[in-house]
């Protein structure tokens, strides 16, 4: 009887050893196979598909003799996965200073309302909580934590171009929203 037991134990040990080996192998192979799956599923997070290209604002001659901020509507092309979406955004072109053009986002850095240029007062005044900004976007008064946000712009072949972006609200430092 004891002899038989030993034999049984032997084969059982082999069975359980194989079990561990198979289990381990399955885990390793499964993990290896799940790598491409995980990368596939994470694709939108791993690539910058939200990157925004340059939008045309207008010919620079149009802005050469501005005396007040000029509101312009631009079209922004964005990638949405496999789609290309076009949306319309407003921006302000500031009067030329030292031969340079600046472009402001009209979004209030306080809570995100659109800020109109008030011709009569020569100021930007936010209609929501009356944050007030100067002609160059500098903060004058009100609840806004910082000046109006500059948008990255460039001149290409006589055409003013801008890269439209959103910025985090309620903080004193300008920070791009990804």
């Amino acid at each position, binding site marked *: 009887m004891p002899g038989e037991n030993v034999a*049984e134990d032997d084969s*059982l*040990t*082999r*069975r*359980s050893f*194989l*079990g561990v080996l*198979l289990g381990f*192998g*399955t885990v390793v*192979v499964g993990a290896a*196979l799940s790598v*491409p*799956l995980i*990368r*596939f*599923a*994470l*694709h939108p997070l*791993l*690539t910058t598909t939200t990157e925004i290209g340059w939008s045309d604002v207008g010919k620079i001659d149009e802005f050469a003799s501005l005396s007040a901020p000029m*509101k312009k*509507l631009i*079209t922004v092309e964005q*990638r*949405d*996965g*496999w*789609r*290309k*979406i*076009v*949306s*319309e955004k*407003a921006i302000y072109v500031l009067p030329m200073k030292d031969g340079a053009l600046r472009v402001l986002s*009209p979004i209030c850095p306080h*809570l995100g*309302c*659109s*800020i*109109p*240029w008030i011709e009569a007062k020569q100021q930007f005044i936010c*209609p*929501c909580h009356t944050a007030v900004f100067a002609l160059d976007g500098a903060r004058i008064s009100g609840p806004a934590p910082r000046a109006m946000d500059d948008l990255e712009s460039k001149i290409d072949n006589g055409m003013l171009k801008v890269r439209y972006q959103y910025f985090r609200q309620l903080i004193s430092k300008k920070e791009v929203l990804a």
Partner: protein
Amino acid sequence: MADAPKPDEKIIGSRASRWSRLYRWLDSRTGIGSLLHEALDEPIPGGARWAYVFGSVLLFLFISQTVTGIFLSLYYAPTADHAHTTVAYIIKEVTGGSFLRSLHAYGSSAVVIVVLLHLSQTFLYGAYKGRREILWISGCALLGLMLAMAFTGYLLPWDQKAFFATTVGTNMASEIPWVGSLLKRFMRGGNEMGTLTLSRFFVAHVFLLPAAILGLVAAHVYLFRKAGAAGPPSEDPVNPRLPTQRFYPRQVVMDTIVALVMILVLGALAHFAPTELGPKANPADTQYVPRPEWYYLPFFQWLKYFKGPWAVVGIVIVPTITAALVIALPFIDRRLERRPWHRPVAVGIFLAIWFTLVTFGLLSKREDRLDPAIAKQVAKQRQETEQFMHEPFEPEAAISTLAAANVALADPLASAGKKVYEGESCDAYHGKNGTGTNAGPKLAGATAQKPAEELSNLLRHPTAKMIEGEMKPVDVSDEDLKALVAYIKSLK
């Protein structure tokens, strides 16, 4: 637990009592012990063999197709407008997308190959004999469902190849007497191939057929266990006499090794020879020469021999009789003799069928090569596919909010009014396109539907309630006011 401990528990117990206790805790709640015993200790008369691996490998491939299929659907859109773009996006842009799609596409071919091997093994070993009729029939049903999966999945990329192959495939259905035309229109969702066809094939491919396959696989495995493993051809199929070996470990190891080789082969193919996508389906193309996937080639060639009124014989009658004979095999061949060398007629017919299939497949390839017009067109299609694969991914222009907003502005007066609306910074309060903000109410909708006179009056002389909400009288020329009203009225 009054019973003597089962062998499995004993080992685990001798290894570490902690694991043993965990196992017993789990077992008393889930019955995992008897489940494992049921799954792994199936007796195989005559012991494990490489010939028995195909069933397990198919199960593995089914899981692989399911997983890759679910992941592919993350980026796929089943409409005629978007299907091709989304597949192009998957293979040209998404990380590992080409690899995953190729795994899925090659996987489908692998399923066909392994199903045929499984069927051949069962036939040659006479493993359908001895109270296994229903088991055999469930296998036949699975074969049919699997071919349906291949047929429906083939359309989904919506490239030229997919479109025209499926046009031909659905046309064949119309040869079926009485219901053919209805069946064809039902499959297509109309007379023509279109976006409804794609929806139908998608639903069949990802919901209906997989659900049916899942159910039938469960039935097939259950019936297999109920009948017991048949063992080698020399074994009695009803009362096995050979000494048995348990499914685990030897057979499990063999199955696993073959599954691993399968992964390696599919992975290497997907990596080094990724599946291509052709240009988007163009129903107006009259030149395209559609060719089915390789496993349908013998049938494709077969149909060439049935012209005009004889088509129904080739498409419907002969295939139906063949399918009926295959399904009825265990009822026709009732002898318990399993050894192939003692079944010359059955094995002869089997080899003849294989020979015919292979010959027809090769013939179709040969005829395409020898016909200069077809060879030229096929080469051109090949080149167009290559070219499309080399082009960078072109995102689809969405019908954007901008376009939608501008449609309403076809009226020049309303368009001028939009400038006034933005010039007066009305948009700061009432939002872009009058959609409303925290600061001002929405204009689109109810307000926009007010009569023009009432609107101009309200703009010039806001009500007390409006003034309370910080609305100021609009101070513009009468002409601009008219334009502004026209714009507001265009906001729906």
